């Protein structure tokens, strides 16, 4: 074995030397094993990647964005966790975004991505992400790459089956992973699961123009665990498919007890019908409590509102709305192909991959080809709805993406590989190893009607020796394969943050053309904006001291502040006066034990500080902004409680002046 390996290595290095010699030469095609594949990931300095790759940040709660094919990390969008790099959750303006019915939650777990679509194709407007633990959905505005809205999901416990999206972004969904007791009677013995525990899937409406979310309706379901979901496309666009496991309704040791049956279910929801029922008043309004948080780009501030009502549809009152399709064993991924005809269930404990036919599903419903009921809901006959099974695909199938040529790519966790197979013929065409234990995978445009193909990216769960060791924890590895030919070819490894679950890739031109460069200062409606250095001031209101500060290369105004006393709460409202792309300013004051700020051009952000000792405290700009960044600093003097040091502030030669509280417009809006 050793001998041929050495030989091929030798050849490889020889060919590589040739490549080096002919630097400007680019081999056509991918015939050269050494150079051909590696060159596919090369993006020359100053050149752009072809795709944005929005990836779940897993247990980090954030959403990193990579360039494809280079694998370069372009940005980490803060979503469900505080992010000191961006001030997210630290500034007074962003804190409300992380508010929930449980109060401020600083860290959650983001699993899945859904890019907005029009006619089942990416439109580049928004990307949605789910909070798995405290059930929420976030909408990120792709003009700013910022989280614009977060809505909490009531009657849910673990929002895993989320935030998949319908063909024209009418709804994103939220299926609960855990079933729980709902309503008034929630203090029950856990072993009464079968009697008292229920599941829900929620349909969250998305405003066509603004993207604003609202919970349109929830469907009450039997007490199973919902795992993943996909909307139909084309002919099946009015339907949604949810994989579910634990049809055994086990409440303990699910590792064993939720695998007793040969088949669990994919739940097929006729959401158009559900929508009609909701409009026809078939639902019941339930009293609940959930937070709805919005970030306003004109005030540069978030608001959090607690909502109290949700419309619940009970299948008992809504016939022909949901059906169960048997699916072997504990299905995880549930993916619809680009035509909308085929629904692929990936039972993680199954020896085959079942592929269902939408046409057959419709026929079975019409002819009532049922196999009994599950909690009063019709179960369709497996053989009647099955297009066929992929035989011996590999071990532990999890997720499936598609290319434009009728092929599917399924990740195999246990056998650590991606398997390519043809959707119609169900024949396995190719398989490549992943390093190691692949979870989700992503083909650019893979979940849409028109996949772009080119690459498949594996998001692996285990890294081990794949990168330089960094102690017990290594960043999860992603692997990109070229799928333009018959055989998949490994091109690139790149590290990711958190633990990536689902990801989507979108052509760069759909997003980059809309990217915002600056916020216009004249449109800044933050109640604490200082619209120019002449408008800076320091105001005292009781024990609150409000500093209306500006930052511009290369000074802060005011940069000398006195008359603040122990017991005061100081609010630094910092407005970045720059109107220049990529020139943020930062702000930090010594002794502040709750954070710092990062302020974009034209924006106002606020740091609250409770000084705890007497003295002089320096503050400065934390983002290297200019040649005189190091000069961008100032002092605030904290005097003892009860001292009579007058309030004063200035910068440079500005004559010290004292502000008297303006009773007219003094901070009523915050």
């Amino acid at each position, binding site marked *: 074995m050793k001998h041929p390996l050495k030989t091929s290595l030798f050849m490889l290095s020889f060919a590589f030397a040739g490549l080096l010699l002919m630097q400007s030469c680019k081999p056509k095609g991918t015939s050269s094993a050494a150079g051909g594949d590696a060159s596919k990931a090369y993006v*020359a300095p100053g050149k752009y990647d072809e795709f944005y790759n929005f990836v779940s940040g897993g247990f980090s709660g954030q959403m990193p964005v990579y360039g494809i094919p280079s694998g370069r990390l372009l940005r980490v969008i803060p979503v469900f966790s505080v992010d000191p790099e961006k001030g997210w959750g630290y500034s007074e303006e962003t804190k409300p975004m992380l508010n929930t019915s449980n109060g401020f939650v600083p860290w959650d777990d983001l699993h899945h991505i859904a890019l907005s679509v029009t006619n089942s194709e990416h439109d580049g407007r928004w990307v949605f992400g789910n909070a798995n633990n405290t059930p929420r959905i976030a909408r990120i505005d792709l003009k700013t790459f910022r989280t614009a809205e977060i809505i909490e999901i009531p009657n849910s416990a673990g929002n895993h089956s989320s935030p998949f999206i319908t063909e024209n972004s009418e709804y994103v969904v939220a299926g609960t992973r855990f079933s729980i007791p709902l309503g008034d009677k929630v203090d029950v013995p856990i072993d009464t699961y079968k009697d008292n525990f229920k599941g829900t899937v929620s349909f969250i409406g998305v405003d066509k123009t603004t993207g604003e979310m609202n919970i349109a309706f929830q469907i009450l379901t039997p007490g199973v665990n919902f795992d993943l979901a996909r909307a139909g496309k084309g002919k099946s666009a009015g339907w949604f498919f949810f994989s579910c496991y634990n049809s055994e309704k086990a409440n303990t040791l699910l590792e064993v007890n939720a695998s007793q049956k040969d088949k669990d279910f994919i739940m097929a929801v006729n959401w158009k019908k559900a929508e009609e029922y909701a409009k026809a008043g078939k639902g019941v309004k339930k009293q609940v409590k959930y937070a709805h948080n919005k970030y306003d780009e004109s005030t540069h501030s978030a608001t959090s509102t607690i909502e109290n009502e949700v419309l619940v549809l009970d299948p008992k009152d809504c016939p022909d709305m949901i059906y169960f399709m048997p699916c072997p064993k504990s299905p995880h991924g549930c993916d619809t192909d680009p035509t909308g005809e085929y629904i692929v269930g990936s039972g993680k404990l199954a020896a085959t991959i079942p592929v269902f036919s939408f046409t057959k599903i419709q026929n079975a419903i019409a002819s009532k080809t049922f196999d009994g009921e599950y909690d009063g809901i019709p179960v369709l006959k497996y053989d009647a709805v099955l297009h066929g099974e992929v035989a011996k695909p590999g071990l532990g199938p999890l997720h499936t993406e598609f290319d434009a040529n009728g092929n599917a790519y399924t990740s195999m966790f246990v056998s650590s590989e991606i398997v390519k197979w043809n959707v119609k013929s169900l024949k396995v065409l190719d398989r490549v190893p992943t390093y190691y234990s692949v979870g989700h995978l992503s083909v650019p445009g893979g979940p849409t009607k028109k996949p772009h193909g080119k690459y498949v990216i594996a998001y692996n769960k285990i890294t081990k020796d794949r990168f330089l060791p960094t102690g017990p924890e290594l960043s999860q590895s992603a692997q990109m394969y070229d799928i333009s030919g018959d055989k998949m070819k490994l091109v690139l490894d790149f590290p990711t943050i958190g633990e990536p679950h689902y990801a989507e890739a979108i052509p760069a031109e759909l997003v980059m053309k809309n990217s915002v460069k600056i916020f216009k200062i004249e449109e800044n409606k933050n109640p604490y904006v200082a619209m120019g250095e002449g408008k800076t001031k320091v105001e005292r209101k009781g024990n609150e001291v409000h500093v209306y500060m500006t930052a511009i290369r290369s000074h802060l105004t005011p940069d000398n502040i006195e008359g603040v006393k122990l017991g005061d709460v100081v609010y630094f409202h910092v407005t970045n006066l720059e109107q220049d792309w990529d020139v943020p300013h930062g702000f930090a004051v010594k002794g502040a034990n709750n954070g710092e700020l990062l302020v974009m051009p034209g924006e106002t952000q606020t740091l609250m500080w409770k000084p705890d000792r007497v003295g002089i405290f320096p503050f400065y700009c934390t983002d290297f902004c200019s040649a005189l960044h190091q000069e961008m600093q100032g002092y605030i003097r904290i005097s003892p409680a009860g001292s009579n040091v007058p309030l004063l502030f200035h910068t440079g030669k500005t004559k010290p002046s004292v502000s008297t509280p303006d009773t007219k417009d003094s901070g009523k809006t915050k």
Partner: protein
Amino acid sequence: MKKNFGLAVIVFAIFTLSCTNENKENNSSASNSNNETAVTTGGQENVKDDVSQKDVVKVAAGSKDHTTLVAAIKQAELISSLSNAGPFTVFAPTNAAFDKLPAGTVDKLMKNENKADLQDILQYHVTTSSLKAEYFTDGMNVGMVNGGNVTVSVKDGKIMLNGTATIVASIPASNGTVHVIDGVLLPPATK
């Protein structure tokens, strides 16, 4: 092993040959295929950005009274530096100010062999900090990029530099401030 080695040589040879051919093709077929690997020259002046406020270079370039200055900045290869984050204060002599210099001075400075002199003069018009008009005080010294100092006098609201040039207008820019002046500042001979 030997057989494989021979194969590798052949592969290498084919590879080299085909590359050579391709290079020739590339050379003959315009610069299209070279775009991907061409090294970008210049700096932030090339950034496509119609949204941000104009920087000091773009402010000057947008003024019909500063064509001589802009041409000189180009000739002195200072465009990239002045498109940087700064912050800068640029004392920007008008075309009329340059015209006040002895005849032929500008033409001489614009010659390649005199680039160092031109750079010295232009750098004597730039300081690294954004000074608004109200920051200037009588008797203040401003350290310029070329290493020299400019002395400021303020009398009756009129700001003069080195007693020879007056600030006639001040324009904020994204990366600093442009003060339009009515005379060219000549750096004192350095020794």
